[in-house]
Each structure stands twice: as structure tokens, then as C-alpha cells.
């Protein structure tokens, strides 16, 4: 017999949980948030900092927290100490907490009390707690001793979906119960005078046509609010509910949510509701919507709390984010749309164009060629000049810079450009640049040192003007510096321009959607001797003088680098340079991140804007380092924050086709547009920053489908990895060099996320989110892990290549680089570069004789990925994909991930393939061989010898049935019927005898066997075409290992294996002594776990394990 302690070791302990936030409550100046069984405590120091103070772990054991009830103090003062009842599902615990500046302490906690039924509501009744239970009964409980004092059922013992307890003593206790029948039942538990006999309902109230999920009672006004599955909120006038027989009157039926309403809360003057649509609405008691808070992602808002004194609303989401919003009630101080009343007898003509010079000066031109100034501070119009030559057609553009540099430019249909100093319009300078129409004007500013104006004329010629000021300030000089030539297209003009720091190049966007790079001083480049090259480019573009009617003999310089049609036919709308990157926006609904390397533009990442915003008009960097996107969404102008997913400003301006202008400073933002012959102006104080606070950033909005650990970064003490745990919670020695694991996750929410998980602090930081997929992302594979400076470079950092795949047969390849960055909370920054993508249906569409083939189903999902790194230099890895249409497909990645090609496929399984796993076989005197194992919904495993497949001349890869089709994989070298149904996890480990193979299934079983390989010796192999023979040696099955799908499985050593299942158990198994034997298991909190990854951290730290499902949990154990 083995020593018993062998069976309890290793023990997994939870280190970190990210789960839906299901409970929120304000206690004094603290916020309690329930996440799984843990309580997060935030300090809401008014005016001071808002920050996470503490995590109180495992308060409710394996229950999830659904609510907190703070015991009211007799004197109504809960400023430093409180008793809190924490409840969720069938569990209840009382904690006594105290707090003061900078500290929060748990003074005492009761036992964890288990109820016989679900707890829908709890209420303090003096020292005891009343509980409303699942089948319509009420219990009076002594929470200190842990005993039930009384239990009273209702005569109608239906299952409830919510309940609300009212009253402060048992005698007056009233319960409003939400029954499955959609009715409200009001009854009085104290009416049961004898033997706790069932009590009949006093009143039944109908109205909702769906289940009631939440209720709130406002005693002071005698109001009750209910939230329902029918997507509505109802407000009821109920008077004092503690008095039997009162009248219940429905006074409001509020439809505003576009999905089920999970939560409702009545405040003295407002009603707050939140639901599955991720929106939190603020209503008046009369049923009018006053505010809408949008920003949570995924399946909705699960918890709400309010701090009435501070006028805060706090929401907790299924995305595990927590946000704080400001209640402002009616009216919006400091913002709104106003008409600037241009029309007047003294100002003839119709407005043609408008622009903003900084945030307080507006300029407009009329069809009489008059230029007007409106000062937003002084609020009056003033004519600056009038020039008839600009009356039939006039472009107007103010110079950039916080106050618009005091300059603006006009251009007309005859090639004339006028640069106007706003304060001294008489000093305006006119130039005739072209013989035809000026199509566009744009400015480019470098610091405060260099100001250029670009004007597009006929034939794709762009004149670049240099503007300087006389030292007196009373005159300006405009000098044509050079001319550029755009690539040919029908609408051949530029749309935007910006200096690329340090300033040697200009980045421009054009109407055809291309992004172009021009030298900012081409002549200088030539003088320096680089000009030969530039000249050659010019020549190659067929430039020269006279192609577009330029009068001067200036050379027209072509771009040194072009990304043709990057934004599609509708054109580029803006370029911005920031932080070493170039950002471009376009009318294709996307924004691009690019950089310039070796004088060439390179796309890094394409990001979609918010849904419905097909016309992205611009991009701004705001003070907190994040960016906001400007654009048009149908008739509205929208300022959208990709970081918080919030629409910060919405202006119903009628769309982007009329003249409009935008400007922002830290103090204010302004948006002006023309409407009905007048200028309309929207202004908002505070600029583009969001007034709301993200207490905790969200992770994925929907289920996590795959987790993969990429590697570890060791940050020296100089980086001072911060910790939210109080110092006394840190184990001594753990302050040492900060080990941070980099993990990537992907989700049904179509994004891939890069996370940093420091080992010492139990925190998680989302470094970046990549959103390229159009459908859910189900699988990830990582390869080529290295460091940014190469193996010799001692600096910390991590680089890797990632392939992601999912729904609609879509696959993307990108690289990530994680480097130290002291300015971020994690001390790390992640750079992502998109390399290539592949869609099966597009692949089919490209094949020439596709009419002869069965088109692949575009609904095919990629279920799992495996990377097989080849040992042949120069040949990129193979990526194997398990596909829902029954195929296993092999892709070849070449050119470090920039080319992704379908190589071969097999329909051997004929059923949905769920898993693929690759491994290599290495043995002395034998060639290294690559194997792939695939598993399907019928419980069978197939093994493929990929080395043979890739051998030229071997028969393993059959030529395609049709030219243009991928090769066909032959027959597998071994098949094993391991389970009765779907295989949801698969892993292998090389051992002395061969390979240990383990699989876990939907039926809860594990299958473990030894795979032996009889491979030919190297010399023999040279001669013939000998392939290895695979045999199954020892084979074991554990039928009821788990009560649900086994979705995670790792063989840690030849004698230890760990499995994870949807039954929420993490179980260790002993291997190597015949049948795998159960050692121990731990219950974890993430439901629907879809994937698990485990890795050794360090000898002192042991292993870490990440579980991803409806949330993320990290466990560790010592080896």
C-alpha cells in the first residue's frame, strides 16, 4: 500500500478568480463586490483615490455571492463598522468589518450556514436574519449561533424567481414573492400563529408576462419596482406594504431595455434598472429615461448598487467588470446643441462650409465668398473678409493645434488657395497653384516648428506649402516647398496628412483608401544623396511636370511607400501619429495601426469600430493614454471609446455628408455642423475624457473557449510590481524578482486577450485585446516563443507567434511582443502585429474551377488547433485544425507567419472533429518524427505521421481530387476507440516506453494508454520507405472519473495527471500503477470550463494552472 499522504498531495489552491460580479453594496465609503465566493473591497474615498483595497477570499465556500445586507445601526451610522450578511445560493455568512482611512479589517466571521433551499432575499430583523427561500417560505435565522428559529411556508409553494422582504421586525415582516406564474404574491409570515402553519397569500398581483427577476421597495414613497423577463420594468403604487389588504396599482410600465431586465433598484428620486442588454438605465419615478450607461460587454449587468449621497451608481457585469457612473438626473450642465443664428439681413449668402480653429473659434464661408468668425466666448459673428473668387466653390480648413494656430485656409475651383491669419485677415496670402479645382486641403503640424498646408489639384498633384510667420506677427509667408503625386485613381486626391515623428516624412491618406508615405523635404533628401532613390520612385510612378496642369516646373514626388486601398473604396479619413505608431481611419468602419520601418509603411493591426459606425472619421489620444474614435453612425456623430466601449458623445447631426468640424482640448470638446442654413454647435466640458470610472476592467464578454500560457517574464525589483494585497498578506520572500506569466485567452466574444498574471500578487492585467474575428474564437496555438532581443539579450521580454481560429472557418496569425513598461500597472506592455489571415470560403472562391467543386460550408467552425514545428529550416510550422465539417485540415505557415496556406485535409472522421494535438517522437538513431492525434464526437482517436506526409515522394499525401484543391491525407497510422462519445481533452507525454496518451470525454471518462513506436533505424529509413509502426501497449479506462465533460487534461509526469471538468472539479490522478487512481479533487468556481493549461513555474512555486470557461480561475500547487 502507498502511504495515505501520497493521495492528498498535491493540493491545488485558488490564487485568482475572474467571474461575473453578482453582488454589489455600498457600506459607508466602501464598496463590496461579490465575485464568486470572494468579496472585493474598494475604497470610494470621496475626492481621493478609488482603488481596490482587499480581496476577502472564500467567504461563501463553493457558493456564489448574490447579495449583501448591511445591518442598520440604531443610530443610522455605518461610518466605521458594520455587520454584513453575505448570501448566495443556499449559503449565508455574517462578517463584522471595520474600516478607516487606508484600512479595512474583518473583525469576525460566523460559520458558513447552509439553508435547505435557495435564498432569494435576506433582511436583518434586529439581531436575526429573515430569509426568503426558494419554494416560497420564510425562515428566521440566528446567524451568530447558526440555528433556525422559525420557518413559515406559504400555502402556495411554487418555485420563486425573486423575492423581497420588507419590515424591521418579525411581526411586521412582509414578503413579496415573484412566482414562476409571473405573479407577485404578498404574504405575512407572522400570520402563522400556530405550528408554523402555511400562510395564504394576502394579495396576488399580475401584470408581467415573464418571470420577475428583481424587486425593490421604496418605503418613503410607498413604491415597488419589478424587473422582468418580458424586458419591462413596472412601477407599482403599493403604499405601506406592511399593512394587509392595501391597494396595488400599476403606475408605470417602462419599456427601454432590449433584453431581459436582471436588476432594479428604487432610489429616493430615481429608478435604476440593468439587464442582459448591458445597459443600465436611470428612470424618473414617472417612467422617463434620464440617463443610460453603456459600456459593459457580453451577457449583461448582474449587480447594481447606489451611493445616494455621492450620486453614484455602481454596476457589475458578467464580463467581471465593475463601473461607477455619475447620476446627474435631468439636464446636462455645460453641454448641448445650440444654433449659432447666422442668418441675418446683415449677413447675406448661404453657408457652405464650417471649421473650428481650436475649441472656441469657429469659421464659416458663404456662397458669396465671405469668411466669418464666430467666437464662442463672446458669442457673436464677425466678417473677416470677402472674396468673390471663392463664391461658387470653397474649401475651408483651420490649422491644427490647440487654438488652431490662428490660421485657416480656403481653396476654390480655379486652383487658388488663400491662407488667412484669423486675427489679421488683411494679411491673408493668395496663391494660384493649379489650373483646375482644388479637391482637398489638409494641414500637417510638427510640434510648433513646422506647419505645412497640402492642397490637391487636378491629376493627383498635391502642392505642399510651407507657412511661416514674420517675427512681428503681422505677416505670414507662404512658400511652395514641393509637389507630390498620388497613385492614379478616379477620385485622385488626398484627404488627410500628418508628420511622422521626428519629421522627415509625411503620412497621407487618399480618397481611394490608400495610405502613402512622402518625404517631407524631398529636395533635401536628394541633396543628401538619397535623392537618387526618391527620384527613381518618382520616375517609376510616371511623374514629371505638367501631368496635372501644374504651372511650376517643380518635380512631383511619388510616395516612397504605399499601402494601396488599405481602407477600401470609400477612402481614408484621418491619419494620426502617436507613440511610435501611425493610426489611420477610414470609411470602411475600421481603424488601422501601422508603423514605419526602414522607410516602409507596415500595417500592424486592423480594429473594428463600434457596431454600426461604418464611417470612422477620426481618432484622438486622450489624457489617460487611451484613444477615442470619432465617426458617424447613421444620422449621428459619435465619439466612442474602444477602451470602455462607451459612446461618450452622440450628436444627431444628420450624418457626415454635410460640412462639419470637430475640436477638442482637455477642457472642452466642440462639434459644429451645418443644418438648415445655420451652424449648429455641440459643446461639452471635459473634452473626450469619460466622467465615469472603471473600477475594474472587464475581461471577456462571453465564455472563454481556450487558454494558453505563452511564457514567463522575470522583472527585477527595479520594476516594483505593484500589489493590491496588503503587505501583511504577502508571503515573505515573494517580493523577490517578479515572475509574471503571460497567458492568452480567446472567447465567444470574438476577441483574443493577452493577460499578465504575476505570481506574487494574485492579480491579473489585461495587456491587450485583439478583435479581428467576425465570429467566436474557439482555439489558439502558440509557437516560436523567444525574447525581443534574441537569446543573447538579457533584458526581460517575450515574443511569440499566435494562431487563432473559430467560427465561420476563420483563422488569423499574429505576433505578440511583451516588453517592460514602467508606466503601466502591470509594468508590461504588449505589442501586437497582425500577420496573415485565412477564410475557407474565400479560399474556395479564389479557386478557378470552383463551379466543379462542392463549396465548403462557410458555417464550419474550427474547434481546436495544434502547431507542429518542423525541423527543416525555412519551412514554417504546420497548423492542424479540427473542423466541425468533419475534416482535419493542415495549414502551412510561411514567411514567419505572413503566409497561411491550406495544404492538406482529411475527412477520415466523418464527424465533427473536436480536438487535435501534436507531439514529436525522438529516439536515439531515429529520425525525429512529428505526429498528430485527432479526436471526434464518436470517441475515436486517430494518429497521423506528419513526417511521412511531408516527405516528398511518400504516398501519404495523395494529390488532390481536383487541381486547386488541397492534398488529401491518407489513412491514419493508428485509430483507437477510446470513448463512447465526444472527446473533449487530449494530451500526451513522452516516456521511456513511448508516449503516454490521455483523453477525456463528454461521458466523464478518462482513457489512458501507452503508445509504443517501432520506428525504423535511421540507416534503414534512407533506403526504403519505412514508416513507424504504432502499437497500444497498456490501456486503461476510468469510466466515471467526472460527472460531466472532461474538458481539461494534462499529464504532468509519468506518475501524475490532472483533469478538469464541467462538473467543476480539478482532480489529480496517479498513473503508472495499472489503472489511474483518484488522489484528490478540488471544487472550483468557473462554470462551463472549456479549457485548461498547466505549467511549472519554479521549483519553489510549483505548478500553476489556468481554467477558462465562464470566467477564469488560476490555481497553484507545490510539487
Amino acid at each position, binding site marked *: 500500500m502507498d502511504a495515505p499522504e501520497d493521495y492528498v498531495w498535491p493540493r491545488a489552491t485558488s490564487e485568482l478568480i475572474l467571474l461575473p460580479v453578482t453582488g454589489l453594496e455600498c457600506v459607508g465609503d466602501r464598496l463590496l463586490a461579490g465575485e464568486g465566493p470572494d468579496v472585493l473591497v474598494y475604497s470610494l474615498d470621496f475626492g481621493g*483615490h*478609488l482603488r481596490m483595497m482587499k480581496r476577502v477570499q472564500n467567504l461563501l465556500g463553493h457558493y456564489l455571492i448574490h447579495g449583501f445586507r448591511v445591518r442598520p445601526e440604531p443610530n443610522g451610522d455605518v461610518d466605521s463598522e458594520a455587520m454584513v450578511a453575505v448570501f448566495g*445560493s443556499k449559503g449565508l455568512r455574517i462578517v463584522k468589518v471595520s474600516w478607516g482611512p487606508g484600512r479595512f479589517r474583518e473583525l469576525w466571521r460566523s460559520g458558513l450556514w447552509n439553508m435547505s433551499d435557495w435564498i432569494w432575499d435576506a433582511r436583518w430583523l434586529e439581531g436575526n436574519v429573515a430569509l426568503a427561500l*426558494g*419554494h416560497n417560505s420564510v425562515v428566521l435565522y440566528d446567524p451568530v449561533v447558526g440555528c433556525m428559529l422559525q420557518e413559515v411556508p406559504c400555502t*402556495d409553494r411554487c*418555485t420563486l424567481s425573486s423575492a423581497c422582504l420588507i419590515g424591521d421586525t418579525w411581526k411586521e415582516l412582509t414578503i413579496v414573492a415573484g412566482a*414562476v406564474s*409571473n405573479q407577485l404574491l404578498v404574504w405575512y409570515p407572522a400570520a402563522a400563529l400556530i405550528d408554523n402553519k402555511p400562510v395564504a397569500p394576502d394579495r396576488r398581483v399580475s401584470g408581467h*408576462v415573464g418571470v420577475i*427577476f428583481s424587486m425593490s421597495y421604496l418605503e418613503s414613497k410607498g413604491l415597488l419596482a419589478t424587473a*422582468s*423577463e418580458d*424586458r419591462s420594468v413596472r412601477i407599482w403604487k403599493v403604499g405601506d406594504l406592511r399593512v394587509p389588504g392595501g391597494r396595488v396599482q400599476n403606475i408605470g410600465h417602462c*419599456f427601454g431595455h432590449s433584453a*431581459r431586465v436582471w436588476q432594479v433598484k428604487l432610489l429616493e428620486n430615481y429608478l435604476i434598472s440593468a439587464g442582459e442588454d448591458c445597459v443600465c*438605465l436611470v428612470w424618473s419615478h414617472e417612467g422617463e429615461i434620464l*440617463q443610460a450607461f453603456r459600456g459593459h460587454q457580453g451577457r449583461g449587468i448582474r449587480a447594481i448598487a447606489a451611493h445616494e449621497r455621492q450620486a453614484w451608481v455602481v454596476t457589475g457585469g458578467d464580463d467581471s467588470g465593475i463601473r461607477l457612473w*455619475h447620476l*446627474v438626473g435631468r439636464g446636462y450642465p*455645460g453641454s448641448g446643441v445650440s444654433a449659432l443664428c447666422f442668418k441675418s439681413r446683415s449677413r447675406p449668402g448661404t453657408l457652405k462650409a464650417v471649421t473650428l480653429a481650436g475649441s472656441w473659434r469657429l469659421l464659416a464661408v458663404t456662397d458669396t465668398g465671405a469668411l466669418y468668425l464666430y*467666437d464662442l*466666448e*463672446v458669442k457673436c459673428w464677425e466678417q473677416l473678409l470677402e472674396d468673390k473668387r471663392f463664391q461658387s466653390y470653397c474649401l475651408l480648413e483651420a490649422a491644427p493645434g*490647440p487654438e488652431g494656430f*490662428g490660421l485657416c485656409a480656403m481653396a476654390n475651383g480655379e486652383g487658388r488657395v488663400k491662407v488667412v*491669419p484669423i486675427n489679421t485677415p488683411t494679411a491673408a496670402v493668395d496663391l494660384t497653384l493649379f489650373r483646375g479645382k482644388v479637391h482637398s486641403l489638409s494641414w500637417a503640424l510638427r*510640434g*510648433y*516648428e513646422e506647419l505645412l498646408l497640402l492642397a490637391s489639384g487636378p491629376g493627383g498633384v498635391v502642392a505642399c506649402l510651407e507657412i511661416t510667420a514674420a517675427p512681428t*506677427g503681422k505677416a505670414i509667408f507662404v512658400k511652395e516647398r514641393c509637389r507630390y503625386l498620388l497613385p492614379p485613381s478616379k477620385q485622385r486626391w488626398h484627404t488627410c496628412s500628418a508628420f511622422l*515623428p521626428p519629421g522627415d516624412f509625411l503620412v497621407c491618406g487618399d480618397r481611394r483608401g490608400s495610405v502613402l508615405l512622402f518625404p517631407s523635404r524631398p529636395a533635401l533628401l536628394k541633396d543628401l544623396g538619397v535623392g537618387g532613390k526618391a527620384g527613381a520612385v518618382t520616375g517609376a510612378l510616371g511623374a514629371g511636370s505638367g501631368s496635372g496642369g501644374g504651372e511650376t516646373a517643380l518635380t512631383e514626388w511619388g510616395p516612397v511607400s504605399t499601402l494601396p486601398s488599405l481602407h477600401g473604396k470609400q477612402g481614408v479619413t484621418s491619419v494620426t501619429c502617436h507613440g*511610435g505608431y501611425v493610426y489611420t481611419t477610414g470609411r470602411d468602419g475600421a481603424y488601422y495601426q501601422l*508603423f514605419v*520601418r526602414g522607410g516602409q509603411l507596415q500595417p500592424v493591426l486592423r480594429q473594428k469600430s463600434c457596431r454600426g459606425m461604418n464611417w470612422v472619421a477620426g481618432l484622438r489620444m486622450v489624457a*489617460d493614454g487611451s484613444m477615442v474614435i470619432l465617426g458617424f453612425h447613421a444620422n449621428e456623430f459619435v465619439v466612442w471609446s474602444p*477602451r470602455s466601449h462607451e459612446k*461618450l458623445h*452622440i450628436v*444627431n447631426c444628420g450624418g457626415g455628408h454635410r460640412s462639419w468640424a470637430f475640436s477638442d482640448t482637455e477642457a472642452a470638446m466642440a462639434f459644429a455642423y451645418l443644418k438648415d442654413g445655420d451652424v449648429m454647435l455641440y459643446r461639452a466640458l471635459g473634452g473626450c475624457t469619460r*466622467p465615469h470610472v472603471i473600477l*475594474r476592467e472587464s*475581461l471577456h464578454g462571453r465564455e472563454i473557449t481556450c487558454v494558453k500560457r505563452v511564457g514567463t517574464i522575470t522583472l527585477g525589483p527595479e520594476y516594483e510590481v505593484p500589489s493590491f494585497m496588503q503587505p501583511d498578506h504577502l508571503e515573505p520572500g515573494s517580493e523577490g524578482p517578479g515572475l509574471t506569466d503571460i497567458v492568452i485567452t480567446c472567447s465567444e466574444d470574438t476577441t483574443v486577450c493577452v493577460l499578465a498574471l504575476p505570481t506574487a500578487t494574485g492579480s491579473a*492585467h489585461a495587456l491587450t485585446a485583439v478583435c479581428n474575428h467576425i465570429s467566436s474564437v474557439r482555439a489558439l496555438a502558440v509557437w516560436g516563443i523567444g525574447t525581443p532581443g534574441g537569446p543573447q539579450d538579457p533584458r526581460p521580454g517575450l515574443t511569440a507567434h499566435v494562431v487563432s481560429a473559430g467560427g465561420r472557418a476563420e483563422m488569423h496569425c499574429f505576433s505578440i511582443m511583451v516588453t517592460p*513598461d514602467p508606466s503601466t500597472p502591470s509594468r508590461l*506592455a504588449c505589442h501586437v502585429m497582425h500577420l496573415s489571415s485565412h477564410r475557407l470560403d474565400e479560399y474556395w472562391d479564389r479557386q478557378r474551377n470552383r463551379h466543379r467543386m462542392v463549396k465548403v*460550408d462557410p*458555417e464550419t467552425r474550427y474547434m481546436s488547433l495544434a502547431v507542429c514545428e518542423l525541423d527543416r529550416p525555412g519551412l514554417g510550422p504546420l497548423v492542424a485544425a479540427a473542423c466541425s465539417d468533419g475534416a482535419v485540415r493542415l495549414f502551412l505557415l510561411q514567411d514567419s507567419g505572413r503566409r497561411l496556406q491550406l495544404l492538406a485535409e482529411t475527412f477520415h472522421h*466523418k464527424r465533427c472533429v*473536436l480536438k487535435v494535438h501534436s507531439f514529436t517522437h525522438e529516439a536515439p538513431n531515429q529520425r525525429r518524427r512529428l505526429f498528430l492525434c485527432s479526436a471526434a*464526437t464518436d470517441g475515436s482517436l486517430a494518429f497521423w505521421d506528419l513526417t511521412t506526409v511531408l516527405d516528398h515522394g511518400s504516398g501519404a499525401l495523395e494529390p488532390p481530387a481536383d487541381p486547386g484543391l488541397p492534398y488529401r491525407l491518407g489513412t491514419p497510422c493508428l485509430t483507437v476507440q477510446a470513448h463512447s*462519445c465526444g472527446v473533449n481533452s487530449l494530451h500526451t507525454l513522452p516516456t521511456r516506453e513511448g508516449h503516454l496518451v490521455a483523453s477525456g470525454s463528454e461521458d*466523464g471518462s478518462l482513457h489512458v494508454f501507452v503508445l509504443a513506436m517501432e520506428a525504423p533505424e535511421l540507416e534503414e529509413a534512407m533506403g526504403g520507405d519505412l514508416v513507424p509502426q504504432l502499437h497500444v501497449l497498456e490501456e486503461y479506462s476510468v*469510466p466515471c472519473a467526472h*460527472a*460531466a*465533460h472532461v474538458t481539461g487534461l494534462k499529464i504532468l509526469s509519468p506518475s501524475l495527471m490532472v483533469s478538469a471538468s464541467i462538473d467543476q472539479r480539478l482532480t489529480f490522478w496517479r498513473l503508472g500503477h495499472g489503472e489511474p487512481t*483518484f488522489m484528490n479533487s478540488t471544487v472550483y468556481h468557473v*462554470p*462551463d470550463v472549456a479549457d485548461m493549461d498547466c505549467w511549472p513555474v519554479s521549483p519553489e512555486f510549483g505548478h500553476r494552472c489556468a481554467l477558462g470557461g465562464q470566467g477564469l480561475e488560476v490555481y497553484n500547487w507545490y510539487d
Partner: protein
Amino acid sequence: MGRTSKDKRDVYYRLAKENGWRARSAFKLLQLDEEFHLFQGVTRAVDLCAAPGSWSQVLSQKIGGQGSGHVVAVDLQAMAPLPGVLQIQGDITQVRLSTAKEIIQHFEGCPADLVVCDGAPDVTGLHDVDEYMQAQLLLAALNIATHVLKPGGCFVAKIFRGRDVTLIYSQLRVFFSNVLCAKPRSSRNSSIEAFAVCQGYDPPEGFLPDLTKPLLDHSYDFNQLDGPTRIIVPFVTCGDLSSYDSDRSYPLDLEDGSEYKYTPPTQPPISPPYQEACTLKKKGRLAKELRPQDCPISTVDTLSQPLAAPQRHTLLAPEVRKPVAQGPLCPFSEPTVEDSEMNCSP
């Protein structure tokens, strides 16, 4: 996405329509029967949570030989009538004795041979709540079964295989001599649903059925939370391997050579609780917030939190920051006070 896209994604959905079943779940019951011969010798069956009625369709066709079978169907929702099926509209968690009596009455005083329950709550996405609600439906069905089922009879009910499913197994084992967990192949791999197949109804001695009280779920005791004594009942996959794979996407022309023809759904969907909200939305009459919608103005705490790193990309290509020149280059940027006063027109 056209109307055929669901046909492609879900082969059983399509087959159900083509075979006249009201729901794809018909195949689940058929496959369960293939494995367990549930209908053998059955003449009286109760279908709990029956709407829209495909299980009732299967039952009425398959039991009792030449149409001598009796089926009682109970659901919260009304469903289109089916020949030979008695319908009772009601909440099964709230059954009064009368419902059980009504069932027995319909069977002319005889107990039922088979009770099936395919009930599922409208899932909220919160796993613990959904699992609890599902367990309550199962226990309510079991409670009814204890009244109407003959000794030795069979009970089949939908379960969610989540964290606490083993508690349900231990509870079912109190009443049945043989409890199994079965999953028909027409149920997807990605779904946590399965069916508890309980054969040989054999209540403990002295057990008195009581419909006035709900059956409450067990809690962990000997059936440990995390120990090796958890009760995991044997798992059986039903339906033969050659049947269609519910996780696979199939081309519209199936391999059996039959040509695809679009079939409209057998039963139009029952009016959902959110119908009014949808109508209002379609008409653009959902309440909207007051416009102009924008930000209240107040100072903001910018906050640095774990899991709060703003998406910040730094320096791949270094940006050279020049000090901001305040020299005389741009005198136009700072208009003087007189200027703006001068410019003011009445």
C-alpha cells in the same frame, strides 16, 4: 445568412421539420428508446413540460400498440392539440393533488408506466441559478412521478450536468433501483444537458407521497463535495454511431442522395414573453434617454487597477519628442485680449 443557414448548422433541426416533428428533441426520445426500450409494454405515459409537443407526438405514436395508449401532457404553455393526448396547462412545480388525480383519472384509475420530463428553465446565464432551477423542475417531476408511477415504472428527466448533478443522482437512487445518465447523439457535445434514465420505481419503505410540499434537493454529506465517494452514475450514449452528428455542419444535400428542399417549421414559435417589447422596438417606441445625450461634467479619478491596463502601445519605432518651442514662430496662436474685444460687433 438565409433561412437555410440553420438547416446547415443543425441537421436534426432540419430532419425534424422534414419528418413532421414539432421540435428536434423528438430524436432525443427516439434515441433514448433505441437504447433502453422505454416504450416496451407502456400504455400510459405522462409527458411533463411537453410544449411544443414533439415528445407527446413520439409517445402517442409509439406506445400501446394499436393506438390504445394514453398520454397526458403538462406544460406552462398551451400547445396545439394532438390526437390521443390530454393536455393540462400548468406549472409542474406547483401541482396540486388535483393534477395528479386528473392524470390518474385519465388513465382510468391505473398508474402510469412511464413519466418523462424534458423541462428546462429559460436559462439566465448564471450557472448556479440555472442549475438550481433545472433541479427544481426535475424534483417537481419526480414528486409527480411518486404519485402516478406504478412500481417498477420508469422515469426519464432532463438534467444539467453541472457541479451538483451528483446530488440529483443520489436522490433519484432513493426511488429507483437503476439510475443511469444517458445522452442521445442528437444532443450536442457542447451542451451540458443529459437525461437521467431511472428504471424500476421502488420508493423506500414507508414513503408517503406528499404533493403539498416540494421535494428539496439533497446536500453534500456522504456524497462528498470533493472526495472519491461522489455518486457518479454510469453514462450511456444513445443512438447508433451511424446516426447524424449534431455537432457537425452538413451540406444541404445529404449523403443519402436526397435532394434538399426547404421545409418551413412545423410549429410556429409560441409567443415569447418579450413580444410586446419587440413590437415596441420595431416601431421605435421603446423609451429613449433624453437627448442630447452626453456626459455630465465632473472631475474624474483616473484609476490604475489590476486588470486595468489601458491598451497602450509604446515605442516600436521611437518617437523623438522635441521640446515645445514657445518662440516667436507662431504669433497667431495667442490672440490678444484687445483683438477679440475689437472684433466684437454689436
